[in-house]
């Protein structure tokens, strides 16, 4: 996967001129991991990412509240001291667990913050790929019902 990815990045630079000429954009050339995003369980996603269930790592920190006031917007951040080149956020109880995947070229910090939707209270997994190996951290985020509900 990693090797593939590097080649893809090279590819992208080759197409750089075409992109700047407006013929294609570089984003078109990126690989979107359909199998992983359409996986319906954690195991299916892990498999599509080319890993068994990753080991837990103390070097990964999930920055997120314990309780989300609204499941439509749940802030989730990952930071790690590992030399990561890929990060991913998974929500166990979402219909499709993989929420987002990030590619970290050299020179970019192994951290990201984004906002995701959660259908219900669930474990959230932060996956980090470093030296070709996926590891992870887990945190439960409670999603509460809010407002008058009408």
């Amino acid at each position: 996967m990693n090797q593939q990815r590097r080649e893809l990045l090279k590819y992208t630079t080759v197409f750089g001129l075409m992109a700047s000429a407006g013929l294609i954009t570089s984003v078109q050339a990126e690989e979107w991991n359909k199998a992983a995003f359409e996986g319906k369980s954690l195991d299916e996603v892990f498999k599509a990412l080319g890993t068994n269930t990753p080991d837990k790592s103390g070097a990964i920190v999930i920055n997120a509240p314990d309780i989300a006031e609204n499941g439509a917007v749940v802030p989730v951040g990952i930071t790690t001291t590992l030399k990561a080149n890929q990060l991913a956020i998974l929500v166990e109880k979402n219909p499709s667990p993989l929420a987002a995947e990030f590619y970290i070229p050299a020179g970019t910090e192994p951290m990201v913050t984004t906002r995701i939707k959660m259908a219900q209270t669930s474990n959230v997994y932060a996956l980090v790929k470093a030296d070709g190996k996926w590891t992870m951290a887990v945190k439960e985020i409670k999603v509460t019902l809010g407002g008058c509900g009408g």
Partner: protein
Amino acid sequence: MKQRFPKASMRKTFRFVLGLIIIGGVSAAYAQSTADEIAKYRQMIADGNPSELYEDAGAEVWKKPAGPKNASLEKCNLGLGPGVIQGAAAQLPKYFPDTNRVQDLESRLITCMSTLQGISAQEIIDAPIQKGLKKDMDALVAYVVTASKDQKIKVSVRHPKEKEAYELGKRAFYYEGGPMDFSCATCHGSDGKRIRLQDLPNLTTQAGAAAGWGSWPAYRVSSGQFWTMGLRLNDCYRQQRFPYPIYGSELLTAISMYMAVNANGGTMQTPGLKR
């Protein structure tokens, strides 16, 4: 000294611990930590308020010639002179001599769009929420209120019509009706109240009104939409189980006037970011 732990509190503690065991760790201990975690949630989403996207769109709408008269809104007078946006929202609603009535931001923008651009006021009022002319209105409101961020709320009641609008708004605030007997005051008339986990500002006090009035309009996370005060009040009345409040009506201006005057001295934190 013997009575350092009175029996009642021992019993309470016992029941509490028992409760912990029975319901598997979910307990009254949440009260404080829940509030802390909700605060953390709000702080995390505050960085990167999608209202900014509406504000950018609003700046475009403001400058772009439109309507039958193909004019922009750059000469619109929001109370501080033609084209002055900076701080304008912090002093609204107010009395406007040209229309001889008290107007809030949205009602005034309707006036500008109809007089300067020739757009039918009724068409704006009738446009469905978040669509067409209302979409333009949302963007304009985001643009204008952002220019009052951190300004002191300073709404006048010197003009008799301003005073009257305040009194009418106050009466509407306490008006109970519908199948659930709700008024605005049912939920916003005392301190320290919540619906579910959402704090309810007491809009009858200065502090509460400053917190409530001062943080709307806002981007609403639950709907993924920017809500003007008109839309905020529309949904209040929906939840109150009232009929549909008419956009730009004297009623909505009066309610706004009541909140804004109560909030005087507070700070505009607009646009806000809400659950």
